[in-house]
């Protein structure tokens, strides 16, 4: 009975969130296109620096001389980071803007299905955005993805989402406490952007290489690029998959405890409805 209600809550949350985003069609179009736009200057920059679309030096660091697909894959996967940080982490802050946070947290149900509903909604919307971006990459930039590569990529994307949503559940909890968490979320985004191989191979610098090891996006990018650009299989990249899986478990447990600790504290101190 309980699990039936929980599924009902998750679906209700997804339906509500989808209804809200469908009210802003421009926003949907924007997220389907612009993450690829942001990557375009890097493609022109590469062309200007080597006078073509291949680089030997780049190949020594990444295994592939073609920097364009490298950059495009980074841009598409980074969409999940933006979704987790700005969508999921900020979702409770938005409820507080709409005046519905107290009602949600006060409702006689477990908070887990609510959070799962929010995460599922973000997973659905960001996957729609990512698919549109991949379509643009294939049509305009000639990105090649073989049919047999789709399933392993999907598996890695799911693993990436699990870790990111674990982290964003913790951030959502922190948002209940500190309210204006914009700075914190921006800072996390910048750290991900600078220290994981979204735009460049982190092996170029010992600092970026070391810090990138604690970011789940690093492993997801290594595996997805390995599959698509180097024609490797999941078995060849198993170590990265295992590390990503372990990070997921750690981040989900961390997110769960942080969220419920802060939620309990916030209820006691009566700060849930304050701004």
């Amino acid at each position, binding site marked *: 009975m309980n699990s039936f209600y929980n599924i009902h809550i998750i679906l209700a949350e997804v339906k509500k969130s989808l209804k809200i985003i469908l009210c802003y069609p421009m926003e949907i179009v924007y997220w389907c296109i612009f993450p690829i736009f942001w990557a375009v200057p890097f493609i022109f920059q590469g062309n200007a620096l080597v006078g073509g679309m291949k680089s030997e030096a780049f190949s020594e660091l990444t295994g592939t001389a073609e920097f364009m697909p490298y950059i495009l894959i980074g841009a598409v996967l980074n969409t999940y980071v933006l979704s987790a940080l700005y969508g999921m982490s900020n979702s409770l802050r938005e409820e507080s803007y709409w005046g519905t946070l107290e009602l949600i947290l006060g409702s006689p149900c477990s908070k887990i299905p609510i959070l799962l509903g929010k995460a599922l909604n973000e997973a659905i919307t960001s996957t729609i955005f990512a698919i549109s971006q991949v379509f643009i990459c294939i049509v305009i930039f000639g990105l090649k993805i073989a049919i047999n590569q789709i399933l392993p990529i999907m598996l890695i994307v799911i693993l990436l989402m699990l870790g990111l949503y674990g982290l964003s559940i913790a951030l959502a909890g922190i948002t209940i406490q500190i309210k204006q968490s914009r700075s914190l979320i921006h800072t996390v985004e910048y750290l991900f952007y600078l220290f994981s191989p979204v735009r*460049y191979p982190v092996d170029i610098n010992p600092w970026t290489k070391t810090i990138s090891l604690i970011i789940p996006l690093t492993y997801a990018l290594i595996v997805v690029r390995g599959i698509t650009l180097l024609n490797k299989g999941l078995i060849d990249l198993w170590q990265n998959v295992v590390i990503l899986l372990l990070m997921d478990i750690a981040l989900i447990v961390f997110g769960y405890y942080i969220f419920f600790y802060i939620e309990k504290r916030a209820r006691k101190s009566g700060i849930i409805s304050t701004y």
Partner: protein
Amino acid sequence: MKMNLRHYLRAINAENIKEWKIELTYRVDFIRGLFEPLFYVLPAILYGMAIVGGRYSENLEKLTGTGNLITYTVIGYVFMGFLETAVWGMGFALRKEQWYGTIEQVFAAPVPRWVYVMGMALHSTMHQGLIIIMQSVVIYFIFGLVLDISGILPSLLIIGIMMISLYGLGILLSSLVLIFKEGWIISEILYSFMIIVTPIAYPLAVLPSILQKISMYMPTTYGISTIRHFLIGESLGFSVFDAVLRLLAIGVLWVIFGLFIFNIVDRRVRNKGELGTY
């Protein structure tokens, strides 16, 4: 007339001080904002180094006359920060007044609209100037930049002229925000597009011809290229005199267009009673 001007200058300064006070209230956010541009410029530098296997690019030298990709990229990104000032600083100033619930009082003040706009512009320019100094110091200590000192003064002059156009853009965007309310998408689209067609980290020669033509109407194209010409000797496809003339012409056009749209929007939202709505 003299008396009026003095009052206007006081109002401009009051707007500037008000913005500083609000920003300095959120210190963590303020400090983060100072370092934020570094998170965008560093990946571009590291990516460039990964592509060429060092800091020198023969192809870049062939195209621009200067092969040091770090200096080339840093100057492009640092001075492009002024576009951010126009789009986000000025463009969102009125939206912020709406959030604070003070826009109706600001618009009811007995000063012309341009006084308020100039106050926003003054604050945004000072803030961006501070960010640029901060960024330059950090980049200098990390990578060590070699610039032609004698190019600093003419570069400042070019920035001043480029800012005229960017103020025009800021005025235009701030008015659009009054109609569209959540107008960040318009700002973001415009910003993303200008970033692509401006020679920030690459010369115009690598752009498709249609984008090259569009970039000729962007003040940032002349601004960034000419500043780099003065500071690191980038070869230009036009003379400095031409660049200044075009910057002035684009500046005058953008300001007139911005003010024209601003006045129409201002009248419209007041007639419809939508000024303070969200």
